[in-house]
């Protein structure tokens, strides 16, 4: 089709086959919303899990100084270890308080009272 190339508002014909391509794109499966984000989060979670399992399974755990961080009590629950008793200090107005541990029915919960 011939047109006037000097007219800025000349209506040009789109490339042929647009309607067919559009029909095919409508028919293609719709991508799930947030699919990419879910995939990235899944891969990241998997990588963390594999890393932790590799570290837990390692016989260097507890012997190697490099793995000292794994012995941190904060990771007890995450790694399924029995929690170790932690020294507890309580201060009030800058004064150290004496405390007494009370019995607890839940092994994950410790109860203290100040004396």
């Amino acid at each position, binding site marked *: *089709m*011939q*047109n006037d*190339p*000097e*007219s*800025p*508002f*000349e*209506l*040009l*014909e*789109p*490339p042929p086959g*647009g*309607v067919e*391509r*559009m*029909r095919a*794109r*409508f*028919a293609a499966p*719709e991508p799930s919303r947030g699919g990419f984000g879910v995939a990235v989060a899944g891969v990241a979670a998997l990588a963390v899990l594999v890393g932790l399992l590799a570290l837990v399974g390692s016989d260097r755990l507890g012997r190697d100084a490099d793995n000292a961080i794994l012995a941190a009590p904060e990771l007890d629950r995450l790694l399924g270890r029995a929690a170790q008793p932690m020294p507890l200090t309580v201060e009030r107005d800058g004064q150290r308080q004496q405390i007494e541990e009370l019995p607890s029915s839940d092994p994950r919960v410790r109860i203290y009272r100040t004396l």
Partner: protein
Amino acid sequence: MTGVDDASWVELYRALEKPLYNVVYRWLWDRMESQDVVQEAFLRCWRARDRIRAEGFKAFVFRTALNLAANRRRRKKLWRLVSFDSLAEEPPEARAGTSVLSPRVQRAVDELPDRLKRVLLLCEVAGMSYAEVAAVTGVKEGTVGSRRNRALALLRERLQPQEVMPDAERS
């Protein structure tokens, strides 16, 4: 736009492809890329069909297409800056037998400020009313009119036939 089946969407596309394509083409100057942007805009509308009202559809699809085109154009400019390369032009064989505008017209349209160009193309190329253009661009109808007049004046100025200077005056 619920209750509209895919066949109707294809019909909508058939009806709006040409005006949309012509607006987007004057942003990208690439035929296939322009058609791709128009289709992408339609797909986005289709995916958002539950949230679009039928009366607002035309404005939505034009706004989406214009935003997509502007983003692509920015990326191309950035790439040209990084690669010290000119914008990729379509190979001549891709344009054979098709209609394109002269480089002089392209340059004149390109040099318009974006906000004026949007209004001008929507009015003159897509044939939209001031009210429709206002819905697409988010400005008042009065502003649409003044921007259109300003854009037309600029374009006329730039497309005036250049006077040929005699050889003696050139040196």
